[in-house]
């Protein structure tokens, strides 16, 4: 009888354990508040396979959608009610390949930026040194910096969050993007950054040529040779070329524009390394036709002026980068291109314009229109 009870007890415990185990398996998980949809994209042919997406800001369909609205929303300055509306798109206009088309930006208070705007093109591949001097490490940081900057929004995160929170359409968009409707500066910066990472330009004539869909004219072909040979204009060492479709090395060079660099907001101001005096980022040449005025201070308004500068306008200083080797005699002060060569070089540069990128009906355009 005692043994019988023991066996019963064992059986009872076993059944109980089995039931507990089964009930645990069936216990329903709480429903996720909301899971945004991972965004997937195809890397254009020939483009880098390594790209920069922060671990704490994965790209999602809903995040990009929200970011697109915020990018174009003039209430982003947090000062629209003070008569000072401003958004990213105020200075990064699609028609100018997300540059402003006029040079330096003008903030909400009327103050101008130190340097001209940089276009938002293929920043997905920027390895983490943004702005002309590389002082900013991420797009997210740049967005927040824009809010504070005295010559941009000249605002505060609190004002921005309050302004965006007051718009009925946004809480559901934030909920879709981040799981809850809470609106914070961090989330705003993340959403805008996600959208900026979709601003990919990959359908210029150059790209079409790479894909076998376009044949260069003789002038364009000659221009390419000038672009990527030392004996020609030697643009490629700093700006990339065939094989580097970003058309930037993402590095910083003193390109022999000046001979005095006191007080410059240059790369030296970030690194303190004397060889960085007067050095600024070699920006992408994609859509260069659209992104003037040129150089960090916008001193050149046309591509012809830029080509003339590199041809015969280099200025000697001991800080000019070694790659500006055409400063030396007997070449004089530039590549010394003849008029035909200048025209050829320009013809090639114009093949870098991507009209699909600036199509106002594409997924990068203003969603409020």
């Amino acid at each position, binding site marked *: 009888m005692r*043994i019988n009870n023991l*066996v019963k007890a064992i059986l009872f415990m076993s059944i109980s354990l089995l039931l507990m185990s089964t009930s645990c398996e069936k216990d329903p998980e709480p429903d996720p508040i909301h899971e945004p949809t991972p965004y997937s994209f195809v890397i254009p042919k020939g483009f*880098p396979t390594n790209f920069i997406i922060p671990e704490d800001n994965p790209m999602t369909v809903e995040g990009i959608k929200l970011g697109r609205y915020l990018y174009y929303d003039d209430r982003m300055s947090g000062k629209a009610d003070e008569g000072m509306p401003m958004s990213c798109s105020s200075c990064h206009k699609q028609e100018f390949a997300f540059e402003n088309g006029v040079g330096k930006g003008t903030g909400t208070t009327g103050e101008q930026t130190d340097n001209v705007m940089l276009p938002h093109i293929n920043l997905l591949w920027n390895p983490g040194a943004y702005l002309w001097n590389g002082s900013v490490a991420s797009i997210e940081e740049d967005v927040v910096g824009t809010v504070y900057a005295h010559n941009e929004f000249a605002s505060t995160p609190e004002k921005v969050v309050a302004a965006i929170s007051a718009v009925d359409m946004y809480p559901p968009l934030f909920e879709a993007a981040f799981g809850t409707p809470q609106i914070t500066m961090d989330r705003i910066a993340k959403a805008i950054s996600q959208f900026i990472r979709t601003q990919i330009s990959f359908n210029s004539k150059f790209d079409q040529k790479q894909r076998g869909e376009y044949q260069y004219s003789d002038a364009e072909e000659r221009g390419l040779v000038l672009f990527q040979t030392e004996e020609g204009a030697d643009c490629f060492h700093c700006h990339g070329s065939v094989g*580097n479709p970003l058309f930037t090395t993402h590095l910083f060079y003193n390109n022999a524009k000046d001979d005095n660099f006191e007080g410059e907001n240059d790369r030296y101001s970030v690194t303190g390394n*004397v060889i960085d005096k007067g050095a600024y980022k070699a920006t992408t040449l994609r859509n260069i036709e659209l992104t003037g005025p040129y150089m960090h201070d916008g001193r050149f308004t046309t591509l012809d002026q830029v080509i003339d500068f590199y041809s015969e306008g280099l200025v000697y200083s001991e800080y000019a980068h*070694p790659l500006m080797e055409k400063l030396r005699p007997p070449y004089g002060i530039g590549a010394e291109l003849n008029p035909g060569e200048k025209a050829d070089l320009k013809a090639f540069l114009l093949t870098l314009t991507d009209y699909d990128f600036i199509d106002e009906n594409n997924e990068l355009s203003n969603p409020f229109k």
Partner: protein
Amino acid sequence: MMNLLNYKTIILIVFAAILSLASSCEKVPKQATQPTTGKLQLNFDFYNEADPMEWGNNKYTNAAGNEYSAYYVKFFITRLTIFKGGETTVLNQFHNSHYVSTAVATTLQWTIADEIENGSYDSLSFTFGFNDEDNVSFMFANQPEVNMLWPEELGGGYHAMQLDGKWRLANDTLTGFNFHLGPGQFYDTSGDITGFIDNSFVVSIPSSDFEISTGSTTNLILRMHVDKWFTSPIVYDHNTYGGSIMATQDAMEKVVMNGHDVFSIVK
């Protein structure tokens, strides 16, 4: 009652058997194979004569008497090969190349992926740059390697090296030199390119014997003696060859000749 007892007995026996099996499994001595391999790490450093190279504005004088400074050097080594007795082993065959830039700290330590049989090795060698077979245009998609591309018009593929700096001219101005190596060109009398020249070369490093020990990583310093690019056997004068030499085989030929004894191993 008896049935239940029998049932219980059977259960207990089964449990005991399982437990016994489990224990016995744990106690079975593993037929562990003794590892017989180790790793090799190359650490790159750069000297000018007896001193560490100072990149930037520090002034040196080369064998030709040029006062110069160097901003950085970037280069590829490929086909890293180790020798042991009569055996030759080519390492890193999956990637083939390693990119080094004095401006990118992470490139200056290279742990080769291969597990290397332990023992005493006589020497190592590598190819400086890519030989014709390996120098495939557009094989790199990502920076920084992609920034080393060599124009198709001049032979294609990638630079073997970019050593960039400045030298002082007779008129006391500084100007840039781009001491670049890659495929050379044959030109006809009208200046048209008629063919290309493989300017890669094998660097066999003397006194580069080393040990690989089981389970550990052997660290070697692969030292570039920057001054030697301009010294031996050819005294290289920037005033003769100018700042840019990618289309000047006569100059690149000198670079190749001088490059064979630019490296040493420091243990």
